[in-house]
Structure formats: structure tokens, C-alpha cells
């Protein structure tokens, strides 16, 4: 069997998730109550029998470092099983902050060489899916490919993806990154498998250029040389690049579009370094079509929502279509609709968030915040009887919350 080294890109500095990525990288954003985004790729790698993993991190990495730790939660620990976090480093000629996905890997060529893999598997840490990479490795070997990229069929042809035209012989004849008009509905999952020697050659050549992205710079070049093959993945695939897509993944969970139990995702169970373990959820209210984590105390109404551990919903509070992170408190008489609430938030008595919906987009983030969501940053305390209208975002740095917050507002 060929040896495969996996590199997980958790480096991207993308603030499209607004306050959710204010203090954490996208890969560390809480997902489905108890997980973080990176758990999905790490669990996939574990289940696929890949034993050596490097995680490339750069942007606000503390919560990610703490979460991933030594890799022991995914069994990447032992004499031949390793997980290394690869932050940017200085003091050597060729090192600096990562300038793009290809550069991040270029700067870690020595790490790759030290493992002597036959192939390098490159994955992103912000995708929510269950995939066995073994069939991909087999496909790559069977067709004697040196470069294979994974694609999935998407319904809404978002501008955020790369798209490929894949021929019947699996060869990619066209690849375009973030096009205005996608030529197909086969979107790149940003999962790439390279023969190690080819990857190193490509990275060394790319390093001399001005742009250092796999999607924009390296894949099109390979297509031109007729060297890139496409592997089609047919199972559910979600991503956490935008508020809308992040919410959609949670909606799919509630709609039971997939069986999360069967995905066997592992996480770091020692979240938030609690002195005692969290008690099972204490339920004495109305909870319907929702996912509730341990340590929650529900005496009010919760519908179509996903709650992380330790959320308290008091009697008389109503939570609808919302996602609430760890240890937030929703007091008596509060009303939440399509709210995404970060950790340790207080929603005081009789406050209302997103009650009437709104067509008014976010003024500051028109592209990112529409569809009636309301976002509240970590640790924010919303005073009693505050009204926050939809498409508003309150960052964790906001001070003095006014009583009325009109639709589309941003508070920093």
C-alpha cells in the first residue's frame, strides 16, 4: 500500500462568518452543537486509515490548537500515528506568513519530505461531510493519476466554488475558479490528491509567481497539461463558508437529510475545561425538531433549533429556527427567531431577536447577511426588552446595546 500524508488547510483568514470567526478560525466554529468544523475532516482521515496528518493553521489559532491538541481524540497518537500543527514560522529565509493555500504547503515541504509519502492528500477544515478517502486513493492508483481533485454536484451554483468539466475518462478538460457563470454543477470540494514529487515541483514553480492558490493557480495549469483527474463524491456535503451555508447544514441535520450517528464524528470531549462533566440535558419544556446537547436546561419552548452544551432556556422563552452556542442564557419572555448566538451570551427578559424578519439586508455586509438572520457575538449581554431586527450583527466588541436595533444594523 502506498503511503499517504494528509495536510489539512485550516489557515484561511476569511471573515465571511462575521462575529462567528471574530476570535476563532473557521475551522474551529462550533457545528451541530458539540463539534467544531475541523472534526469532520479529522474524523474522515481517522476512519480512512490515514496515520499522519499535518494541520496548517495561522489565523487566530488558539481555540483550534487547544481543540486539536496532540490529535489523541482522533487516535493520531502512537509510534507511527502522528498529528502535527504547522503554524507559520520565522527565522528562515523562505518562511513568513502563509500567502495562500499553495504557499502554506510550500513552506512545509520539509515536513512533507520528512514523512516520505508516495501521495499527499490536501483537505480543507471547513467542510461538513463524511467521506472515506480510501476509494479516492484507489481511484487515483487505478487510473495512474498524479493529480486528482474531488468534486460534488451542487444545486445552487455559488460563485464561491471552483467548477470543472469532467470527461467520461475522468480527465478534467476545463476548470474555472469562482466564475460568474459556472460551466457545470460539479463544484470543487478542495480535496486534492497529488503524487508527492509532482506536488513539490508544482509548489516550487508556483513559489516564484505572484499568486499562491491551488484553485486559481495550480489546478488550471494541470488542466492545460491534461494531468488533472476528477473524482466525483456523491454523498451529502455541506460547508461553513457563509452564514447561509452554515445555517443550511444545520437545517439539513434537523431535516434528517443524513444520519449523524452513522458519520461517527469524533471531537475533543473536554470542551471548555470544565471542572465537572456536564449533566445530561434537563428537559421540562416543549422541545420539538431540535438537537439539544448535554448540560442544557430547557424550561421554555425550543423548535427547529440546535443548542450547544450548557444553554439555558427559561420558562416563557421561545427559541425558533436558531443556533445557540455554549452556555448562553435565554431568559424568561425572550423571543428568538433565526438567531445565531455565540458562546456566553445573555438574552435578558422579554428581548426579541428577528421576530418579524426583514427584507433589509445588512448595510455593512450586504453580501453576507440577508435571509433574516440575527447574529450575536461571544459574551454579549442584551439588556431586558431590547428589540433587534433581522439581518443585524452584534460583534463581541460592541458596548452599550440600544433598546431598538433596526434591521440590517452592525454593532461593533
Amino acid at each position, binding site marked *: 500500500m502506498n503511503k499517504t500524508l494528509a495536510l489539512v488547510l485550516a489557515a484561511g483568514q476569511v471573515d465571511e462568518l462575521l462575529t462567528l470567526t471574530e476570535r476563532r478560525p473557521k475551522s474551529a466554529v462550533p457545528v451541530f452543537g458539540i463539534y467544531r468544523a475541523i472534526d469532520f475532516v479529522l474524523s474522515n482521515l481517522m*476512519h480512512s486509515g490515514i496515520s499522519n496528518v499535518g494541520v496548517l493553521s495561522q489565523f487566530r489559532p488558539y481555540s483550534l490548537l487547544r481543540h486539536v491538541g496532540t490529535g489523541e481524540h482522533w487516535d493520531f497518537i502512537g509510534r507511527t500515528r502522528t498529528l502535527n500543527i504547522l503554524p507559520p514560522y520565522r527565522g528562515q529565509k523562505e518562511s513568513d506568513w502563509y500567502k495562500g493555500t499553495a504557499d502554506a504547503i510550500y513552506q512545509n515541504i520539509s515536513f512533507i519530505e520528512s514523512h516520505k509519502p508516495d501521495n499527499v492528500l490536501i483537505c480543507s477544515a471547513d467542510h461538513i461531510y463524511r467521506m472515506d478517502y480510501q476509494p479516492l486513493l484507489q481511484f487515483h492508483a487505478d487510473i495512474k493519476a498524479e493529480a486528482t481533485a474531488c468534486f460534488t454536484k451542487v444545486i445552487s451554483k455559488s460563485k464561491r466554488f471552483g467548477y470543472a468539466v469532467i470527461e467520461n475518462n475522468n480527465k478534467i478538460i476545463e476548470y474555472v475558479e469562482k466564475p460568474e457563470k459556472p460551466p457545470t454543477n460539479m463544484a470543487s470540494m478542495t480535496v486534492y490528491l497529488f503524487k508527492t514529487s509532482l506536488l513539490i515541483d508544482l509548489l516550487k514553480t508556483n513559489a516564484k509567481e505572484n499568486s499562491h492558490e491551488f484553485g486559481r493557480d495550480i489546478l488550471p495549469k494541470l488542466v492545460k497539461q491534461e494531468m488533472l483527474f476528477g473524482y466525483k463524491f456523491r454523498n451529502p456535503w455541506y460547508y461553513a463558508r457563509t452564514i447561509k451555508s452554515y445555517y443550511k447544514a444545520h437545517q439539513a441535520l434537523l431535516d434528517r437529510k443524513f444520519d*449523524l450517528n452513522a458519520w461517527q464524528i469524533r471531537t475533543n470531549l473536554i470542551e471548555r475545561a470544565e471542572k*465537572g*462533566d456536564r449533566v*445530561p*440535558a434537563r428537559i421540562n419544556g416543549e422541545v420539538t*425538531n431540535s438537537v439539544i*446537547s448535554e448540560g442544557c436546561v430547557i424550561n421554555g419552548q425550543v423548535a427547529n433549533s440546535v443548542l450547544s452544551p450548557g444553554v439555558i432556556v427559561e420558562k416563557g422563552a421561545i427559541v425558533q429556527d436558531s443556533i445557540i452556542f455554549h452556555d448562553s442564557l435565554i431568559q424568561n419572555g425572550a423571543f428568538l427567531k433565526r438567531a445565531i448566538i455565540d458562546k456566553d451570551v445573555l438574552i435578558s427578559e422579554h428581548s426579541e431577536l428577528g421576530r418579524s424578519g426583514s427584507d433589509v439586508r445588512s448595510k455593512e455586509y450586504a453580501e453576507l447577511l440577508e435571509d433574516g438572520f440575527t447574529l450575536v457575538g461571544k459574551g454579549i449581554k442584551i439588556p431586558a426588552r431590547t428589540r433587534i431586527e433581522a439581518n443585524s450583527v452584534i460583534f463581541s466588541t460592541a458596548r452599550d446595546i440600544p433598546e431598538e436595533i433596526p434591521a440590517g444594523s452592525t454593532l461593533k
Partner: protein
Amino acid sequence: MKKNIVAMLLAGGVGTRLNILARKRAKPAIPFGGIYRIIDFTMSNIANSGIDVVGVLTQYKPLSLMEHLEDGRPWDIFGRTRNVEVLPPKTGEETSDWYRGTSDAVWQNFNFIEEYSPEHILVVSGDHIYNMNYNLLREFHEAQQADATVCLVRVPEEEARHFGIAITAPDGRIADWEEKPSKPRSNLASMGVYIFNREVLAWALARAAKKNGYDFAKDVIPVLLKQKRVCGYEFNGYWRDVGTLDAYWNANMDLLRTGSGLDIENWQVKTNMTDRGEIGDRPSTYFGRFAEVRNSLISRGCMIDGSVENSILSPGVKVGKNTSIRDSIIFHDVTIGGQVEIKRAIIDKDVVIAEGARVGIGESMPNATYPGQLFTGLTLIGKTVRIPATGRIGTNTIIKPGTDLARKKLRDIPPGSTV
């Protein structure tokens, strides 16, 4: 390596009166409160009191207990100078054999204690539900300049005959001691928690062993009372011995009763969360569109489509549509179909209950085989039992582990039966 205090945790209890719950696991390893095991309460008390060397004395079916304790990591008693050591009986040495009693177990492992040359030895049981800071006990013991101190708790008069009972003197000493007396002279019961000065304990254990005495309550404490300064420390918090099915069920239900004193949220109990050695971690619990849950504790990994009231569900329980569960304790990965009715039942792991079955019905008459154990209307379903569609299981019934009622073509089990 010198330590001020070493804890010796007695976890060898057979738990006969807990019937099939203790069939394949030691009593301290029986699940409690959804995600915990009984021993977690004592282990957490030890950890939260800052004691970092623990000898765990096991004997009876220790496998699930040893897996659960792991290397002490779940309680942070782990590292180069912190240690949870499982001490099973051993042969091949002069002083070793099966443990003949609680004090014998400690005596056979006295060399483990001496490695740390502690001033004090804390002896605790692994089968009680309580939250206690043992530092306060040690401070009391030191202030009293005692040789040994016994923890005491007030129990209802009518229950006193089940315990070791202390008669205390005004100066804090224990003047007299009665082990399970028919006519108790006080209601101050021993909690099975003791602190000893090391030399005193070594002397007392050696002396007891010479006279074929192997039990703390029967052989060690009565002798110490006469010769040394033994004090009583009264503990005022919630404390339950969960040695009977009724006591076990009631202590679980105390988790759901406000003001019961079992304040699990504030007790900071730790457990080993890698339960059942799963490949993946269990996701948070899904509550379906028709779920109705009242006053219940629901662990992770459950799927609830029916109605659950006054009940405690361990991880991985599935509850079908139009199913009703009342006043019950359900262990890990039990699958309950639709239109099922369950009342006052304790259901062990991996049980499958098919559509339309009813558990805990009919008149309450004591169990015919174990009338002293099962008489209050509870129903006990053993591990991996399968109950067929529309099956009827009467109250005070025991279905033994592994029984496939469907294959046995048993559909109607009258109250008080044992299958």
C-alpha cells in the same frame, strides 16, 4: 514519593440486592444518572478534594470498572506523581489471597500505601451517592487529634438497623458501636468513610488479621474504639447507600426532584466520557416533531419521537412515536419502538422493545423469587433482552439478561415473575 494522604477505595462490592444490574458488573460500576457510574461520585470527591493517589480495591467482576477508571485520566489523577492504581487480589506472595473482607483488602495492599509514607489514609466505599470534601474531614481529624475518625450521617430511625451505628460522647469521641443492631441506640450511621493515622491503621490491621478479622466495621473499628482515640465526624449533606433496587431507583429520581439535595449540577462529578469504546462520539440528542419531554434527564445520542416524563435516559436511547415512558431509568442504547408504554422500569443496556409492548403493568405483588428485593412496583429488564411486539410485562418482574422473549414465544409475563 511522600504524600500527605492516600485514598483506598473499596470497590469489591457484590451488590446481590441489586439483582441483575450487578450480574456482570461490580456494584460501583452500575450506571447512574444517565452518564455516570456509581463510583464516579466517590472518585470525583477524591479528585475535588485534591487527593492524588488512589488505590482501588477490586475483586468482583472488575472488568467494566477497570475500563471505566482507565488510568485515572478522567478525574485528572494522572501523571508522574498522580496515580489511580487498581489493586486486584493476587497470589504467589506470603500475605496474598482473595480479599476476605474490607480491612483485609487494605491490609494486603499496605505496601502500596507505604510507598507514599502518608500521614493519613482515607478509606472510602465506591457505592454511595454523595458530595463531600474530604479535606474538611481531615482538618477535623487533626483538630481532634484523633487516631481514627469515622464519618457518620443521620438516617431514618427505621433504617438504622441496616447500618453500623455509632453512639457518640460529648467530646466528639465514639463511645460505642453497634453493627447492624436490631434495636439501634442512635440513628448516626457509618458512611463507610474513615480516616486513619498510618501507624494506627497498620497496628489495627495487623492485629485484626492475626485474629482472623477482615472487616472494618466488624473487626477494626470496635477494637480501635477501646484502645485509641476514635472520633465521629457528622456529615450533613445528601448521602445515599444505593444497595437496594428501591434505593437505587429513588436516588436516581432525586436527580429530578427539586430540593432533594442531590444537586448534580453543582457537585462537579466527573466520569469517563469515552463510554462503550465507540468509534465516533455520540452526537447531541435529536428531539422529533412529536417529542414531549417533561422533568427528565436526557443524555447525548438519543432520538426522542415519543413522550418521556420523570425519567432518566442514558446515551443512545431511541424512543418511537406515540410511545410513553414514565418514572423509568433507561440505560445505554435501548431501542424502544412505537406505541410502547413503560412505567417504573429499570432497563439495562441494549434492550430492544418492539412496537406496542407494555412494561410495568398489572397489580403490584412482590416478585415471587426475590420478594425482599422487588416489591414496590418496579420492573427490571436485563441487558440485551428482547421484548416482542405487543408483549406485556407485569410489575415487580425480572427479565434476566440475554432473554429473547420473542424466540421463547413469551408475550405475556404476569406481575411478580422472574424469567
